[in-house]
């Protein structure tokens, strides 16, 4: 290896990296120790690299970037365990059970429609592609987003539940009706609240008192208020959910 070849190789050398132990650089580094001209060039090169590197690192970053990245975990992390076969099987069972339930209640068309709604919302709760379309917004931004996307910006959650804030949201369509999905995460748990106009689900026979059920991996609660139906699907214990509602 001559001086020129050593220069070429050493231009790619990063002293604090694993390059220091890479045999590719050993010969060039040895030559630099023996050749004063090459050694001086190498020292200058490293000083120049350090100067440019410091300029690149001086670039300012968004102050909220880290928080946003950590927030993303709330909506994405759940996919890992829900995609596991056991949970998928459970979800499929829920669908079959609800579908079977719907069949048995064929005479009661309204109740069957509510069953179909629950199946569809369970599916939406499992959907991670993506799970929400917007996240990291404060309350006014959330309402504006829902207004712009023809959701339900005037939704009202029970106070104790509302305290925990909405993590993200999405609009899903069910039988031609728009349903607002509100995603929440707190106390190590996760809940999706679906809001739909009561007129779109006419026979649900709901009241302001939540109606609880167990749907596979979810505890669900459904209630009606001010012309809207709220359907919550979450992984909280039922007792905890009752405290919040």
């Amino acid at each position, binding site marked *: 290896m001559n001086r020129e070849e050593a220069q070429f190789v050493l231009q*790619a050398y990063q002293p604090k990296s694993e390059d220091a132990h890479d045999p590719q650089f050993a010969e060039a580094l040895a030559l630099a120790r023996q050749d004063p001209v090459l050694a001086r060039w190498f020292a200058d090169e490293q000083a120049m690299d350090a100067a440019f590197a*410091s300029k690149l690192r001086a670039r300012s970053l968004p102050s909220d970037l880290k928080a946003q990245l950590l927030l993303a975990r709330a909506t994405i992390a759940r996919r890992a365990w829900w995609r596991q076969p056991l949970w998928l099987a459970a979800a499929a069972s829920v669908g079959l059970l609800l579908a079977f339930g719907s069949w048995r209640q064929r005479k009661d068309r309204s109740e069957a429609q509510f069953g179909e709604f629950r199946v569809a919302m369970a599916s939406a709760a499992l959907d991670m592609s993506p799970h929400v379309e917007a996240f990291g917004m404060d309350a006014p931004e959330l309402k504006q987003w829902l207004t712009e996307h023809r959701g339900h910006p005037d939704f009202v959650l029970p106070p104790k539940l509302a305290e925990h804030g909405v993590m993200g949201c999405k609009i899903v369509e069910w039988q031609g009706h728009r349903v607002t999905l509100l995603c929440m995460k707190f106390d190590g748990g996760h809940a999706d609240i679906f809001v739909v106009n009561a007129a779109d689900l006419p026979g649900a026979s709901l009241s302001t008192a939540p109606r609880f059920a167990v749907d596979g991996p979810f505890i669900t609660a459904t209630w009606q208020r001010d012309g809207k139906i709220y359907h919550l699907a979450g992984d909280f214990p039922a007792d905890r959910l009752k405290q919040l509602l």
Partner: protein
Amino acid sequence: MDEVDYEQAVALYHEDLHRFALSLARNPDDARDLTQESYCRLLSKSGQVRDKSKVKSWLFTTLYRIFLGWKRHEQRFPHLELAGVEHEIPMLTPEAVEKMDVGVVLEALQQIDEHHRTPLVLFYLQSLSYRQMAEMLDVPVGTVMSRLSRAKAALRAGVTARVTNTGVSNVVPLNPQRTPFSKSS
């Protein structure tokens, strides 16, 4: 990937990853999207990263591939080769660089074509070794060294041209459009 691992991956790498994204995307919004999408994939495909020591290179490689995917989709990136810079390294001292405005350096950097800019930024951020760069870029290690050498020369030529205000740069300018690609909504 558990919560502790993810938090560590964010704490340790998000700054350099975002700087890398900025160097590729050229505008802050797209850079943020690239960074976020990379971490989202880390969460959703964490099974692919069994060795924790590989998380860093996995993130950088993933971000680069997402960028290439967007770029392919948009077809708005003319690739122009550097020309005639390797024999014309201007006289420039580290002290002069340190005194320079950050904007001058970044502007010169952004004028370098992506094939050369990418390894140069990774090199300066000390994000990946040259072997990892070769894997990421899917080129031989010799090509990485060659691109680094030419990119360094181009950067020095670019900042010198700007500082001396000659208006003449031996770096091939790219499309001056500030928005290299549009985000998919």
